[in-house]
């Protein structure tokens, strides 16, 4: 097993066997080929950021992992063994929990009711064992150092966005889960609440869970991620260690799909050459204008370049991974 380094130097953790590994996953909705040969790995004790532009397929990938959608083809390996995940129960029994983009809490139930939703404890005469549930919920929340909720019997409708997110995340760790997936947990939050939630995300990883974090917020990603997986138009653009890339490179991976990889062969761990890469991409794609100004144009051009270049970018990804290890 992987040694799960706690807090001190998490950036180096997670080499070795990934707890979750997807190989060449495909998923179509009718004629729309949303995921094309996607590779994905997550390691215990690490925060893996899953980034990509709107419509890149992040939520779809996560729903495939969680069993909401079943995959059309490819390998799904959990702890090294191939598994079949066809509905959310399968994923849950493996120890995979998802906190959805839309929170999936019942506003009319209290915190305890929500945390145990669908898995209520019953005692004699099939009655709800409220005491045990409340105690366990309280322990889980305090174990995550959550102190922002006043009472566990508060209805969720009376909670703030950050508190709701906290409840949803705490719910996912109540079940000795091994992989927790968070779909844009900070999207609707203010500065302070975002910090709280990111703190919580970090603590989950430090407890040895594999955390997968979807986010559009570059600061979030830079702050908590150990590894970064970039999706681009339904394909894996890169799987890299956070320490090996700069913010600019990540942005390029998201918007153009491959910029980071191209100039990133032997000496790619330097910081200064991000702009150089961008320039290179622009050159390759035949665009003179700044990338940030017209991401859509870049994306289109990139798609064309991709069609011409075949599997070039995947090779590039491997190169990055090799460099990291």
């Amino acid at each position, binding site marked *: 097993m992987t040694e799960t380094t706690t807090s001190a130097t998490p950036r180096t953790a997670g080499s070795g066997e990934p707890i979750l590994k997807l190989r060449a996953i495909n998923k179509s909705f009718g004629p729309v080929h949303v995921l094309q040969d996607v590779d994905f790995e997550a390691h215990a004790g690490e925060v893996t950021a899953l980034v990509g532009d709107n419509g890149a397929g992040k939520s779809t990938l996560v729903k495939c992992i969680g069993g*909401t959608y079943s995959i059309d083809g490819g390998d799904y390996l959990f702890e090294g063994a191939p598994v079949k995940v066809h509905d*959310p*129960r399968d994923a*849950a029994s493996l120890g995979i929990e*998802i906190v*959805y983009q*839309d*929170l*999936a*809490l*019942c*506003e*009319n*139930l209290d915190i305890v*009711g929500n945390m145990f*939703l*669908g*898995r*209520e404890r*019953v005692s004699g005469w*099939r*009655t*709800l064992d409220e*005491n*045990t549930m*409340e*105690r366990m919920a*309280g322990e889980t*929340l*305090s*174990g995550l*150092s959550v*102190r922002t*909720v*006043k*009472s*566990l*019997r508060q*209805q969720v*409708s*009376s909670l703030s966005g950050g508190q709701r997110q906290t409840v949803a995340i705490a719910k996912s760790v109540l079940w000795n889960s091994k992989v927790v997936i968070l779909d844009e947990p900070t999207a609707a939050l203010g500065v302070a609440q975002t910090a709280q939630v990111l703190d919580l995300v970090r603590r989950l990883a430090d407890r040895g869970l594999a955390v997968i974090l979807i986010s559009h917020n570059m600061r979030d990603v830079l702050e908590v991620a150990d590894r970064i997986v970039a999706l681009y138009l339904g394909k894996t653009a890169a799987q890299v260690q956070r320490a090996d890339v700069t913010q600019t490179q990540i942005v390029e991976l998201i918007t153009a799909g491959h910029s980071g990889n191209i100039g990133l062969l032997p000496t790619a761990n330097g910081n200064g050459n991000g702009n150089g890469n961008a320039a290179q991409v622009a050159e390759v794609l035949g665009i003179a204008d700044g990338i940030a100004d017209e991401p859509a144009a870049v994306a289109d051009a990139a798609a064309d370049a991709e069609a011409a270049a075949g599997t070039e970018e995947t090779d590039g990804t491997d190169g990055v991974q090799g460099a990291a290890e």
Partner: protein
Amino acid sequence: MSTQPATENKPGPVQDAAPPARTATTLLGYGRERVERARGGEMGSLPAVAGLIVLVVFFWIVQPGFLSLYNIANLVTQAAPIIILAMGLVFVLLLGEIDLSAGTASGVCAALMAVMIVRHNMAWYFAVLLAVITGAVLGFVIGWLRAKARIPSFVVTLAAFLSFQGIVLMQVGKAGSISLPDQAAKPIITLEGYNNNLMPLWLGWVMLAVVAGGYALVKLRIAVSRRSAGLESEPTLVTVAKTAAMVILGAIFVYILGENRAIQQNAFFNNLKIEGIPWVVLLLIVLTVGLTFLLSRTRYGRHVYAVGGNDEASRRAGIRVDRIRISVFVLCSLLAAVAGVVQASQLESVASNFGAGNTLLLAVGAAVIGGTSLFGGRGRIMDAVWGGLVVAVIQNGMGDLIKGANSQAWQWIVTGLVLLLAAGFDAASRRVGGADSR
């Protein structure tokens, strides 16, 4: 900073994981929490109880006969079928659905029962059983059409409402009404006090003792186990107060209905005694306790609330949403059948318009007035009880208050307005609760 009381929010290291603060254990905290909940739109049955008191006082002032012994017993028997129908509707409303056919479903079941007893000489208990099973089957069909065929419940149950009315018409036939025979259907018509077959006086007191004692015991057990688990619990004083209120009100009720309410002016009836509680009250208590248990203490009940609150979240949590959806329609129609039996008991017959007209409107009104939300996710069985009493009081009071040609018309208008008022209240409390502002 130094002006702050020493006990409040001491700054300092908060590293250790303190459990969430306990607020509700003290009386003050309990009161504060209640007020907070009311502000958040969670009023429970409070408005219904307040409305009930106001209405009773009002009708009593304008019409002293309203609180006559005879009329009080009358109120209870009038309220019973409305309450039972409303109990079933609470389940459906909890999912944010509606069952417009509940009234006429009760008609179909009651008519079937009557036909079986009168024309096929079926024993009354088999006939009742058949009626209840028929109710469940009708509910299953409606629920299936809603959950599996995905037809909106409004349409499904509107269609059922019309068809069921036709079925009753067919069952009852040209006679226009089927009278329940005194002998063959005696236990059924006894339910609502036919021929003054009422509970013996002692049984009324025993019933009160069992209910109040049971309530106190359950509350006490919960409090003890919560305290030993280190959790906050309702203040003892509140439990004691609630139990005391129950005992006092219950004792007044049992005592009043234990008095002889026969109108003794007629020499012929001089030695007649009408005293005791109608048997239907026992049925109401059993249903209230049983269904409250089902909703608040079982997984099934929790899942009903969950699906009503957020069906997508429930699905993701592994709850079989379709089954829950079908089940509430089954329960609703089943309880409608029971309500039909009770209504038939009161009328001692089943007419061709049984369960039509404003039957459903009154029951929906009862549930909503009691505090059940039309938007789903909020409601309790007690809502049906309080709301049903309010509706019965309005019906009964108005009936005596307004005389003349238009009295029926006014009853309809006032009932409609009350329903509208309750629904407006519901919508307003939902806005306050913030559910709309997303």
